[in-house]
């Protein structure tokens, strides 16, 4: 093999190697991000750390949203259908935040088991339709359950 070709091959090899390592690091980062995600069931089982930031996700339980008078603090319950977890949050909620919607909350669990969120994000699904169509689907019973997406994990 002539030296020019050898050098070229080495260069290509290095680039492929570099990209592979970057990709692996990326995947790894996503993986560990998923690990910091806990479902309400896992929190109830005591798997979540106390005093450290982690994410919890689920659906906002219908009728659970209460607002303290004269303040921004809201309290609501997220559920994964099995267990549920009350969340306290002082801040501006995303516009998609509503009862029955999938959300992700980032925050800490204190010693008393109270979860205070520092950030609340809403997840929406890939369906787009006019309100009348959505109403018609619901009326005709063709509305797929879980249409509003249920986050199993995040990031």
């Amino acid at each position, binding site marked *: 093999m002539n030296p020019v070709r050898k050098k070229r091959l080495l*260069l*290509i090899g290095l*680039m*492929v190697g570099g*990209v592979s390592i*970057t*990709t692996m690091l*990326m995947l790894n*980062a*996503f993986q560990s*991000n*998923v690990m910091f*995600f806990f479902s309400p069931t896992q929190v109830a089982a005591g798997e979540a750390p106390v005093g450290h930031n982690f994410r919890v996700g689920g659906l906002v339980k219908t009728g659970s949203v209460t607002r303290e008078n004269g303040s921004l603090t809201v309290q609501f319950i997220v559920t994964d259908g099995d267990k549920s977890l009350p969340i306290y949050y002082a801040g*501006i*909620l*995303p*516009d*998609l*935040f509503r009862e029955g919607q999938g959300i*992700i909350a980032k925050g800490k669990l204190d010693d008393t088991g109270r979860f205070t969120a520092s*950030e*609340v*994000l*809403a*997840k*929406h*699904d*890939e*369906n*787009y*339709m*006019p*309100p*009348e*169509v*959505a*109403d018609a689907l619901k009326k005709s019973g063709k509305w797929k359950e879980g249409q*509003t*997406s249920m*986050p*199993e*994990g*995040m*990031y």
Partner: protein
Amino acid sequence: MFAWFFRLGSPKHVYRIAGRFLPWTGGLFLLLLISGLYYSFSAPPDYQQGESYRIIFVHVPAAWMSMFIYMVMALAGGVGLVWKMKMADMVASAAAPIGAAFTLLALVTGSFWGKPMWGTWWVWDARLTSELILLFLYLGFIALQAAIEDTRTAARAGAILALVGVINIPIIHYSVEWWYTLHQPATITKMDTPSIHISMLIPLLLMAGAFKVFFAHVLLIRTRTEILRREQKTGWVQELFKK
């Protein structure tokens, strides 16, 4: 068949043909854009997101273009690398800045959509991160070409970078399925169950068409410029500028 392929390799021929296409791509773009914009704003609001979902009509076409242009660039680079076709190298260089601009648009309009709906400008989820890496790939390609003086070496280095970076395209596309992302799954690719109402699908496809034709139009102009730049000392270019 081969005559056709060889003619595509001839800068003189491509310069002429590209010039002839320009009025058509320009006209078609304006037609698609005007009808696309009209339907974008006459479509009904979304049942969940209200009027804010209209960002989809620029965000999604820009995101599609960011990936499509990368494929064009990598393919042209690959052809230039394998068959030593200078014309293909020129197309790859001409495409890169357009692709970078659409990637930036996809990221920023996504951010403008994410803030009111998700509650955040940015999250490091797989979809957003891989799209950001796409922007870096484009910028890397442009920087590499600018840094290497010799045209042929620059083309070769750029093509290799572009080809290696192709791995990122399926990662962007499948990121919403492979990982848990805040970004919702694809709306259009599931052909069996259309998850967007027809009144919203029409403007989306019209705008996507407009963006694609716009890319073709600007690519033709930039490719012709690239041909003139690299062939300026040849007889046929000199002939072109003699009165």
